[in-house]
């Protein structure tokens, strides 16, 4: 093993060691030792990732096994690494954001009794995510895929006494499992047709199988690649929260804020995007699959952004904005603009982590109040948080020169050039989404950080509305689950009457914020090398017929050129208009939103109800499965099998015995009669024959 190979191993194993120590011995070694050791693990991980990154960018690509997991027949299942520009970039993003979140956690979770457990989980998450991105085969990809799902489940339910948290984590796991169901079938099809799960071998063989078709229903034949890619993409729809499997992500905000930043914004939810980019040699062979990806992404990008505009919970605004941004990445994948998708993933990781951690900083200052109606005017109390959130919002809205501008603009442009069926639809929604993005980003900034200081004013109409809503939710929860009602009510009231002036969060909180805000400003400036240079090399394949990125590369004249060019384009002005609308509604005429809400009641209700998907899923899938299960159990198992067949046959034996028993009556004349009757019957039979 070379020194570089040892480094590869060190990258995931350092966080794993931290996780094991914190998990098994956290209580024994105490809080300080726990966070020191796990952060040390992360520092080692980041340093090793950096060395690996430099090495890879120097041209040293690695693809090799670590150990043999299983051999079955002629198939070897290996655990192994593929270290190329794509995975090295992901390793950098994951380890950097993770380290920031580790540090931030010291402040955010300071009073939590589960401190050590939390560090153990986030280190375990980092290990799993790194194994996912470093994999050189589908098996290990699936391992990492499910492992990050597990840790996400554990972390959403971190406060496991809260009914909402343990509802959300079960929902997240099960919805993801629906995606994994498709993903696993896709992997099984890959294995069946390629005879291996090794990326390199599969990609090399993909061209040969491009013409194959498969008959799932008799008489209907589909292209094999289309079926494989759509099945794999269903996995991505679960993990990267694409419509209609996105429903778990907003609820996942029940978890502590650091993991919302790490898992549900920067890293785990981008696993699906990463996966599709990794599978580009397969997806490029199926126009149908690309079109499917494009349309799903477009729906997610636009319709989830709309929901963000009506949310009051500061974390949920950011969560819906994440869904929308993931939609943009997915659209980019569908338009074969893989490098743009990964670039947006890269910039988004920073600015979305900033937004989440900034929201978390606000939440600490507001004593765990997340409702923006009870905030306002926070800018002067927490200037650092304000500045970083503002940067995050500018980037999220896609305004130059912030990071999000470059990546989003590239995606919109790529959609404009794309030729896949559905590209026009996707382009329209993407452009419209830019306006909505500008609006909700600045709605958050203006509503929480500017305007009246509503937290100190219990009689403000917004605060009254918020309290009434909280009371209604508590009452509904009490109705659903009266075991916990008392506890939750007390909880709500604890925070209702808090009137201490908010103040800036401690350094362990704001230093990571600042460190993440820096790349949120300038990460976009690397677009030239990242997207238009040959940065990804062989890790991404684009079919020669898909020319969007190639033609855009010719039109690219540096970062400054891109910004000046944008001044004359529609998306830029739409983003500005969105921000301006937010300014008008929340600064100039703050009484107006309430009026508009009343006026557009139906639309607002649809958006607040999230298009009714949650209700439908609860009724149709959860309720339907339970009803079916009860029917099969009571009707099938108990009524038919047990009562009729099993106990029925026992009763039958009893009945037959009862009948036969009467024959043995003990009376001589009964027996004599039977004998005579028998003799006569035999004689008759003998004579007639």
């Amino acid at each position: 093993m070379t020194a570089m190979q040892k480094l590869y191993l060190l990258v995931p194993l350092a966080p794993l060691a931290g996780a094991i120590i914190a998990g098994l011995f956290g209580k024994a070694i105490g809080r300080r030792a726990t966070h020191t050791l796990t952060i040390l693990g992360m520092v080692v991980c980041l340093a090793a990732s950096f060395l690996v990154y430099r090495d890879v960018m120097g041209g040293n690509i690695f693809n090799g096994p670590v150990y043999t997991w299983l051999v079955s027949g002629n198939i070897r299942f290996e655990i192994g690494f593929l270290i190329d520009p794509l995975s090295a970039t992901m390793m950098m993003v994951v380890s950097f954001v993770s380290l920031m979140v580790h540090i931030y956690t010291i402040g955010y979770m300071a009073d939590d009794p589960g401190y050590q457990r939390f560090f153990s989980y986030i280190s375990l998450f980092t290990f799993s995510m790194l194994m996912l991105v470093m994999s050189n085969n589908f098996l290990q990809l699936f391992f990492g895929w499910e492992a990050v799902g597990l840790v996400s489940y554990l972390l959403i339910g971190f406060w496991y006494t809260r009914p909402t948290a343990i509802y959300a984590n079960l929902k997240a796991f099960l919805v993801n499992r629906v995606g994994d169901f498709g993903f696993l079938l896709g992997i099984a099809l890959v294995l069946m047709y390629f005879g291996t799960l090794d990326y390199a071998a599969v990609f090399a063989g993909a061209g040969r199988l491009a013409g194959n078709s498969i008959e799932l229903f008799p008489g209907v034949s589909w292209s094999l690649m289309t079926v494989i890619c759509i099945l794999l993409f269903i996995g991505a729809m679960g993990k990267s929260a694409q419509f209609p499997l996105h429903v778990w992500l907003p609820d996942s905000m029940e978890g502590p804020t650091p993991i919302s930043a790490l898992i549900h914004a920067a890293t785990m939810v981008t696993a699906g995007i990463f996966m599709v980019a990794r599978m580009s040699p397969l997806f490029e062979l199926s126009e149908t699959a690309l079109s499917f990806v494009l349309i799903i992404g477009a729906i997610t990008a636009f319709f989830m952004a709309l929901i963000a505009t009506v949310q009051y919970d500061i974390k949920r605004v950011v969560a819906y904005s994440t869904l929308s941004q993931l939609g943009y990445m997915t659209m980019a994948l569908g338009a074969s603009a893989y490098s743009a998708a990964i670039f947006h993933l890269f910039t988004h990781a920073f600015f979305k982590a900033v937004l989440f951690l900034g929201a978390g900083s606000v939440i600490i200052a507001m004593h765990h109040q997340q409702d923006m109606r009870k905030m306002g005017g926070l800018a002067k109390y927490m200037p650092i948080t304000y500045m970083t959130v503002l940067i995050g919002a500018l980037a999220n809205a896609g305004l130059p020169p912030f990071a999000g501008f470059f990546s989003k603009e590239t995606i919109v442009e790529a959609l404009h050039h794309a030729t896949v069926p559905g590209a026009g639809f996707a382009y329209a929604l993407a452009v419209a989404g830019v306006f909505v993005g500008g609006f909700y980003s600045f709605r958050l900034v203006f509503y929480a950080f500017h305007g009246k200081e509503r937290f100190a004013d219990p009689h403000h109409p917004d605060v009254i509305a918020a309290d009434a809503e909280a009371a209604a939710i508590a009452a509904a929860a009490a109705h659903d689950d009266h075991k916990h009602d008392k506890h939750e009510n007390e909880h709500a009231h604890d925070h209702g009457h808090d009137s201490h002036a908010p103040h800036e969060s401690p350094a362990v909180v704001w230093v990571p914020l600042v460190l993440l805000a820096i790349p949120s400003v300038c990460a976009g400036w690397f677009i030239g090398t990242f997207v238009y240079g040959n940065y990804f090399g062989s890790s991404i394949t684009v079919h020669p017929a898909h020319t969007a990125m190639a033609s855009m590369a010719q039109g690219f004249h540096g970062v400054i050129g891109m910004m000046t060019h944008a001044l004359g384009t529609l998306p830029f002005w739409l983003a500005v208009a969105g921000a301006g609308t937010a300014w008008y509604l929340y600064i100039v005429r703050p009484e107006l939103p309430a009026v508009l809400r009343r006026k557009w009641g139906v639309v607002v209700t649809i958006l607040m109800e999230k298009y009714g998907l949650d209700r439908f899923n609860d009724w149709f899938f959860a309720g339907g499965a339970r009803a079916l299960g009860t029917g099969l159990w009571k009707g099938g198992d108990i009524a038919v099998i047990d009562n009729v067949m099993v106990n029925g046959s026992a009763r039958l034996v009893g009945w037959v015995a009862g009948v036969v028993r009467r024959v043995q009556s003990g009376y001589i004349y009964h027996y004599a009669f039977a004998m005579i009757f028998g003799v006569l019957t035999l004689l008759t039979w003998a004579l007639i024959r």
Partner: protein
Amino acid sequence: MHELPLLSLAIWAPIIAGVAVLFTGGDRNAQAARVIALIGAVIGFLVTIPLYTSFDAQSGGFQFVHRVPWIESFNVWYHLGIDGISLLLILLNSLTTVLVVIAGWQVIQQRVAQYMAAFLILSGLMNGVFSALDAMLFYVFFESTLIPMFIIIGVWGGPNRVYAATKFFLYTLLGSLLSLVALIYLYNVAGGSFVLVDFYEVPLPLSLQVIVFIAFFMAFAVKVPMWPVHTWLPDAHVEAPTGGSVVLAAIMLKLGGYGFLRLSLPIVPDASLYLAPVVIGLSLIAVVYIGLVALVQTDMKKLIAYSSISHMGFVTLGIFIFNTQGVEGAVLQMISHGFISAAMFLCVGVLYDRMHSRQIADYGGVANKMPVFAALFMLFAMANAGLPGTSGFVGEFLVILGAMKVNFWYAFAAAITLIFGAAYTLWMYKRVMFGAVANHHVAELQDINAHECLVLGVLAALVLVMGVWPQPFAEVLHVSVNELLAHVSLSKLPLQ
């Protein structure tokens, strides 16, 4: 090879220890009974370790063969030998016995000697099933396992134990009686031999193969158990003491899967192929239908019992798709299910011993009071849901891969377990472990003690090791499975 008759030791050491335990008499000598039982179980396990270490994974056929005449007038032999499949099952059985003895150490306070003896004797008998190469010997061991389990459920069981024990006994006994007829028929056809390998060579027309297959199927399908002859299992589990449930789920159900591999497939290969679609259909019903039924259970033990049936559906599915991934997956699934179902029943036992309730509704927020237990239970719940990195994934993954080769929709239906398995397991976990402390009984719970921690810890380690590195488990299988599949692919129909 070895001088010691290791297989005989694996069978008789626990049985002799069991008889010795009985001689300690009443509960005044309970401690002596426990110690002797533990020594017997540990010896029983230790003698199986050389079986693994000196097993030759490269060579086919049966190893550690031991053959002496038994009933000479009928040409019945005491004939033992193992291949890779039986090797793993013997190891699993012997280890489980040790764990069951430790798990019952404090919990069982009445008729301790008899309790321990029943488990030790049962362990020896099941090792007998897994190593018998003579059909009559196989049958005798197979049937005799019913007696200790009948006693375990009937004596140490819950309130409705007599119904459950009787149902268990009659169901499984009636199922296997026909297989005795089939074995005697085969004895005649094979020219007066009960040697299994001779049965493998007997040519039979398809119609007769089908009859023999059905006779075997009755015996093994009830044992597995397959839908629709599964309803004895939830009742038996609910009433059985924890140890009984552990052995029932971890080992006894495997007698069915093993029977298919050792008898049905090689003796009547053409009928097996001919009827495979039916068996596959029943297996998939088990996976989907039983998965849904498990979802709505209100009794934890019943839920896990149904989950067992659903997981065993993968075993029969894997066996009857006749490819390497399928059969190896089936065997690995049997081993993994041995670890996981044992652990799940032990976890329910831990709660039952404290609360005397199996109803999910009586719990809530247990994690607040039992954090160590909660962590272990979480691991096993995830393993039960087939999470990669745990043993539960390995078998299911291979079977789904194997099924895909045969038919997309087989794999599709089987993969539904990904959703259902997670749903019923984690929903139960949520209601029992998460949430605020539900009532004052939960508030008084104590975390697991050293005995419980040891037993669950061993199983946790096995679940993780097998999940992260299944190769040591799988490598002893390859040659045996390939031989078996080669055998199945050769038609035994007589030449026209």
